[in-house]
């Protein structure tokens, strides 16, 4: 029966009733009696059934048998190993049997719950137990490997999430490298004037955090920088960072602002001003920027384009302008990584019938944010595209590009609240009419619905319906010179055309355009919508499938500031808990090469998803770096002479398991034939 000579082991088999969950369908007494008798020649010395194997009494049963009957291997037939494998492994360990000498087979989720015929279910349980018994004798004790944790941490993205995470970690005394691609940290939040639901001033609450992050002794702030390469594994990442040339000597620059005052080149700022305002070719995106040093935008700088100008250099009082500065490549070592790269705004141009880009007085939400910002391009005045006229009526359209099968199917989460915030700001700043066009109103946060009530009180018109079109073609003299919002008002049950002066599109949140590339760089995955995937949506929301890489904030999915900050702090806590352990246990079931037989063909090396296998030039053999190996076994499936094997899933074990099941099924046939 065995693939090679079967090791002599003393095996205990335990069949769980799980109350009536299993026993109601599978004849557990019959199964355990059968195992005790029929599997005796395979080493089974005791087989029992018990009401609840996972209870402390059930576990004690195993522990007692290990001690009294000298069991060397244990098989439990019960629920899914995803539920109770750790429970029984621990019980074995307590009684002195290595946890990897335990095997669990699933006769509940994969038998009693899915099989109608009781006799068939009982037979299936026998086959599954025979399979487990078949394999368990070949199992080998494994010891977990521990690797030390480098206490330094990399945080990628300096929005409110990344700042929060960096501060939490830095305050605990660990060192953080905070890498931000833009010239300043702050992210989207820095663009806003007021934040829902409290309407407190965004800058007032964010700037102090930005300042702390910029001046913390435990934070190395690398703005205008990007991560190029990540190598290694939890505890031991080596990260290559490109610090792009600012063309400014940071040690000389005082941030006085003379350079951008004197720079003659005005450029539309598509990032921070969302295209609504201008900046210079040498610039800081906003006055409270951290760090205070400007960058020269090489693409637009007259000197780089035409070879002359250098106005900034002439006027800089400290001689900090350095036109010949080069990108710097830094290599840092960290033990953990937090990704907080945020989101992009849905491009409203993709919905042509909303007219963004064609109809001048259709604005995006981010444009509107900049408009209401006292430090923004209109100095906080709500005005039409001409820059002077105050609108008398404003339409705010919800769910632009969200909850729409043609664009993004999901709810962007923040737009209802953000639209209500806009309604308030319009009322406050212009006193004009506000129309909200919504599909459903979603205000599930703390004090969010109260905010909604308040906006209704303030007199916003709420119209339930998905806007079909925004047009400037008047059908009636009263529509002349207006933007007309065409909608089916589902509360009144009729089509309406509402003329307004200004339309604001509450565009949804999307994953960053480069999310896939970033995910690949850090070895994590993206959902179908390109949001980073967390390890578990409920129970492990900030970890990822890659140990040591965490995600927080809007890069994991649409969320507002409170949720982003909470995730930033949560990711920091996870990282600090790992650092606190000093070392971390890594996968024990890793691959291993038998050097004596390996022919050095490199096939396994090419097939490993984690580049965990090295080629030893001197020996001409493959070698698995245990700390990198995740135990998938792809290499084993590849190797032709079978010189590489995966611990705990060896060919021997799998074949023995398969044979156990096959032989039992065949034995039923013989019985039936007889």
């Amino acid at each position, binding site marked *: 029966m065995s693939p090679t000579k079967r090791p002599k082991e003393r095996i205990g088999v335990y069949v769980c009733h799980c109350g009536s969950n299993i026993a109601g369908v599978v004849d557990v007494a019959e199964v355990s009696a059968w195992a005790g008798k029929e599997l005796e020649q395979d080493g089974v010395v005791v087989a029992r059934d018990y009401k609840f194997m996972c209870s402390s009494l059930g576990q004690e049963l195993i522990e007692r048998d290990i001690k009294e009957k000298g069991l060397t291997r244990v098989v439990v037939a019960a629920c*899914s190993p995803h539920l109770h494998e750790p429970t029984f492994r621990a019980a074995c360990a307590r009684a002195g049997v290595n946890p990897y000498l335990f095997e669990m087979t699933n006769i509940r989720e994969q038998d009693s719950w899915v099989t109608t015929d009781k006799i068939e279910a009982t037979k299936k349980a026998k086959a599954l137990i025979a399979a487990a018994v078949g394999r368990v004798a070949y199992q080998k004790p494994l010891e977990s490997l521990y690797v030390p944790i480098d206490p330094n941490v990399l945080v990628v993205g300096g929005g409110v999430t990344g700042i929060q995470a960096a501060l939490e970690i830095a305050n605990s005394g660990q060192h953080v490298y905070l890498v931000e691609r833009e010239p300043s940290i702050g992210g989207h939040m820095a663009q806003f004037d007021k934040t829902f639901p409290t309407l407190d001033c965004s800058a007032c609450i964010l700037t102090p955090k930005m300042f702390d992050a910029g001046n913390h002794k435990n934070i190395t702030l690398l703005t205008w920088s990007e991560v190029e390469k990540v190598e290694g594994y939890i505890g031991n990442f080596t990260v290559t960072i490109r610090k792009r040339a600012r063309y400014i000597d940071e040690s000389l620059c005082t941030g006085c602002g003379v350079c951008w005052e004197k720079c003659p080149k005005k450029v539309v700022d598509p990032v921070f001003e969302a295209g609504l305002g201008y900046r210079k070719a040498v610039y800081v995106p906003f006055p409270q920027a951290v760090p205070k040093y400007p960058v020269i935008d090489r693409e637009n700088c007259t000197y780089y384009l035409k070879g002359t100008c250098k106005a900034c250099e002439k006027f800089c009082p400290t001689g900090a302008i350095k036109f010949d500065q080069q990108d710097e490549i830094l290599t840092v070592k960290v033990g953990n990584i937090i990704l907080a790269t945020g989101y992009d705004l849905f491009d409203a141009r993709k919905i042509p019938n909303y007219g963004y880009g064609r109809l001048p007085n259709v604005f995006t939400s981010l444009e509107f944010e900049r408009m209401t910002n006292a430090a923004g391009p209109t100095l906080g005045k709500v005005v039409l595209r001409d820059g002077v006229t105050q609108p008398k009526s404003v339409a705010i359209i919800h769910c632009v590009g969200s909850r729409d099968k043609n664009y993004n199917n999901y709810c962007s989460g923040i737009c209802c609240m953000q639209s209500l915030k806009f309604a308030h700001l319009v009322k406050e700043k212009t006193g004009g009419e506000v129309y909200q066009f919504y599909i459903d109103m979603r205000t599930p946060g703390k004090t969010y619905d109260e905010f909604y009530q308040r906006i209704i009180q303030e007199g916003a018109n709420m119209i339930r319906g998905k806007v079909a079109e925004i047009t400037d073609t008047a059908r009636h003299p009263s529509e002349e010179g207006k933007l007309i919002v065409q909608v089916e008002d589902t509360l009144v049950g009729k089509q309406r055309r509402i003329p307004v002066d200004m339309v604001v599109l509450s565009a949804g949140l999307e994953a960053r355009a480069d999310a896939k590339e970033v995910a690949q760089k850090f070895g994590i995955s993206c959902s179908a919508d390109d949001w980073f995937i967390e390890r578990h949506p409920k129970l492990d929301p900030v970890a990822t499938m890659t140990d040591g890489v965490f995600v927080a904030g809007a890069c994991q999915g649409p969320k507002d500031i409170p949720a982003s900050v909470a995730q930033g702090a949560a990711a920091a806590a996870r990282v600090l808990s790992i650092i606190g352990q000093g070392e971390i246990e890594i996968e024990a079931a890793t691959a291993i090469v038998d050097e004596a037989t390996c022919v050095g063909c490199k096939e396994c090396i090419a097939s490993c998803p984690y580049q965990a296998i090295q080629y030893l030039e001197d020996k001409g053999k493959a070698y698995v770096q245990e700390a990198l190996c995740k135990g998938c076994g*792809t290499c084993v499936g590849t190797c032709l002479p079978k010189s590489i094997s995966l611990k705990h899933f060896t060919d021997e074990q799998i074949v023995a398991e398969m044979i156990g099941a096959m032989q039992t*099924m065949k034995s039923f046939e013989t019985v039936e034939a007889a």
Partner: protein
Amino acid sequence: MYEPKIIGFLCNWCSYRGADTAGMARMKYPPNVKIIRVPCSGRISPELVLRTFREGADGVMVLGCHIGDCHYSTGNHRTAKRMPVLKKLLEYSGIESERLYINWVSAAEGEKFATVIKDFTEQISALPPFVETMK
């Protein structure tokens, strides 16, 4: 009629959990498939499948995570390349290639799992027992 003997190699992260999901929803399906849990569908070498046939299995299933969802990122890409070749070899050797079944079942797809098991069991029942081929 005979009761086909089928071995299913299921990856631990998606398909095995998909089978659990079917169980939690109490979906019913035939008992013929005996599941063997492996870390990733990429672990399944052609030799393991062939050995299973040699043991007299009437059908073999290899189920993994959907392409793009493999717990080990791209382990199943190798499955998607190896297994079709093995199916071809079965065909060229005169063995019904439908005896080897490859599909992707996520942890959430309990219903798909149950359907896949039902359909495959039926499909195999329509073929003669593999022992006939081995004669």
